[in-house]
């Protein structure tokens, strides 16, 4: 996490070590408590400006970062590709340098291309936080997911998490698999082979049927299935995917009674998950969203707090 020029960026979860993750999760607990107060605001980052630079539409992640920054009393600027000079052909580098020159103290970046946040981190002197880049990484999602799992499961060592769905195209899965492994969890994936890269980290167990791994999973982590995968030939049809991989009431009945059902959102109800399961007591989807704000507060505070370090 320590990089050039002494500043800190968050580009993927493996820039943190286990101890840093633990302390980050602890400070997130304190911020979660702040969010339950009547006045949900602390002055930790007063006078700082956080810029959300979003090259890809994302209402929930952008709002989550915006709320996190505002709850820390930072000023927030939202810059989305559709309403910016990007359409006039300004390069990523020039956009980043412009935002920095305006006095931004940190940049939160979402980009459809892998590595765009890494390039900005290299070019800029301010901290860069990756809010999701291409198929590469989504570290703040992975950290909030670990936070949620730990709140519900306690110690994570030896607990099994199963990621279900389009692992190949998913930055959530890539960062999530890393983060869960770092916390000592057993990681499994369940998907049709066309959704599974051959180069998963060693130790990740692979299943071609969700039914084969239901019973032994403490966490079932569902990924969003995009309709275009059918056209691209990754799936014969959504119906076939639903038949083998949808988490429905029947399958939930075969899982551990205390299983946690998670999803990064937005859900395709009726595809990877049925509405009833989404609203079941096992489902943590709403709690993930709540914790997302607290964890992002902890991340912003870590990178920007005080004068360059918590």
């Amino acid at each position, binding site marked *: 996490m320590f990089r050039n020029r002494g500043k800190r960026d968050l580009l993927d979860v493996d820039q943190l070590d286990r101890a840093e993750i633990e302390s980050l999760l602890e400070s997130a607990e304190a911020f979660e408590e702040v969010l339950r107060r009547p006045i949900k605001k602390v002055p930790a980052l007063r006078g700082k400006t956080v810029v959300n630079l979003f090259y890809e539409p994302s209402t929930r992640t952008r709002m989550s970062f915006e709320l996190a920054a505002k709850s820390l009393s930072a000023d927030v600027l939202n810059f989305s590709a559709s309403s910016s000079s990007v359409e006039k052909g300004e*390069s*990523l*580098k020039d956009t980043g340098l412009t935002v920095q020159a305006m006095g931004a103290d940190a940049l939160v970046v979402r*980009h459809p*291309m*892998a*590595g*765009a946040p*890494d*390039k900005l981190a290299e070019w800029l002197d301010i901290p860069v936080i990756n809010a999701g*880049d*291409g*198929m*590469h*990484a989504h570290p703040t999602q992975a950290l909030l997911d670990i936070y949620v799992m730990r709140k519900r499961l306690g110690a994570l060592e030896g607990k099994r998490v199963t990621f279900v769905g389009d692992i190949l195209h998913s*930055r959530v899965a*890539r960062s999530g698999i890393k983060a869960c492994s770092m916390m000592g969890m057993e990681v499994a994936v369940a998907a049709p082979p066309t959704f599974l*890269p*051959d*180069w*998963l980290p060693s130790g990740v167990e692979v299943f071609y049927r969700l039914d084969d791994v239901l019973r032994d999973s403490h966490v079932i982590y569902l990924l969003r299935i995009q309709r275009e995968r059918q056209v691209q030939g990754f799936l014969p049809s959504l119906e076939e995917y639903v038949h083998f991989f949808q988490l429905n009431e029947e399958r939930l009945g075969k899982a551990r009674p205390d299983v946690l059902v998670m999803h990064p959102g937005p859900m395709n109800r009726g595809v990877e998950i049925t509405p009833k399961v989404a609203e079941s007591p096992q489902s943590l989807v709403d709690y993930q969203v709540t914790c997302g704000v607290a964890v992002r507060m902890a991340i912003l505070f870590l990178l920007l707090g005080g004068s360059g370090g918590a």
Partner: protein
Amino acid sequence: MSEILIRGGRVIDPFSSSSFSADLLIREGRIVSISRGIARNGFKVWEADGKYIFPGFLDLHAHLREPGGEEAEDLESGLMAAVRGGYTAVCCMPNTEPPLDHPELVDALYLKARSMGMADLFPVGCITRGRKGRELADMGLLNSSLARVRAFSDDGDCVMDSGLMRRALRYSRALGTVIISHPEDSALSSNGQVNEGKVSYRLGLRGIPSLAEEVMVARDILLAEETGARLHLAHVSTARSVRLIREAKERGVPVTAEATPHHLILTEEDIPGYDANFKVKPPLRTKEDVEALREALADGTIDAVATDHAPHTLQSKEQEFDYAPFGISGLETSFSLLYTELVLKGELSLEELVGLFTSGPARVLDLSPPLYGGEFVEGRVADLVIFDPQASWTIDPSRFASKGKNTPFAGKEVKGKVVGVLKGGRIVYEDEALCE
């Protein structure tokens, strides 16, 4: 034109597989005397003691970007770069704007290069009109133009239509020309950025499987076998491609192949994050692939080293990895890199390496003496390279003659340097070290 005397060098002659020490006297563009102890006689002298003398190199594969891409390279900067690398002849690829699918276009380039007098230009013509992969370009007219196009390629794109590729090969039989295949099944490589494997997974970039190349290598070998036409496979990068080519050669299929310095040295593991200077097609592969390519150089399965010189502007490379173009600027570093990595490490003899830059590519193009190359005998055209094996230098793209500064080898220490180049007896490059 005045005389030049090259004193005390050691001549490496891959055309006759010999090497010997001699003084060479050059007059009116030709080597007029080869013997020991030629008197200085007021001639311009190159002291080549401890240095090697090679025939001028021939690059089978360079993108000189003219016409249409002059902000990245033009004929003058590209040929200057070629000469600095020791090349006295260059095949320029036709993926220009407009593409080289018409005799007037190739002749304009050919004449311009001839007037510059730095290196011979062999324009490669398009296989298909506009490089669109739909109908054949005027191959016969291109071949009978002033530039005498002797190789055809849609390089940058593969001719995906197997029926059309078959007819191109069949048609070329009448011309005696070679079809250069860019073996890449675009359905398999689609949107890929780096080799499909653990690095593509780690970086979250779409992968280009080695299969994208091998499927087309196999197809084109079968087409060459069936049509009897000459096929050359560009920038071969995988172990399985090597195996397919080796087997084809054993069967007597008229196929030749080239490999690039970067595929012979770097692997996917060398890609540092999202540095687009490492973004190239075919992508950098694995250690096993590099080893197979090196074996293929040594056993003759691969006939030539080609640069696939692909210059790009700094701005185009300095952006999101997916948006940056593919390619490496390679003309000025090729020989020193391979001398350092292969000859000095004992994997290849100096004679073999020189052959891969001279007699090998000449064979691919079916260029035989006196038209090109040929033995070091009196009367031979003086296209010569002086190479100092002792010189050590650091690759510094800011000093390239090429406009393309895009190299993954920036900062690398190499041994051995081209210090002087004669083209038709004229000095086209002279390092300070040579003119003391």
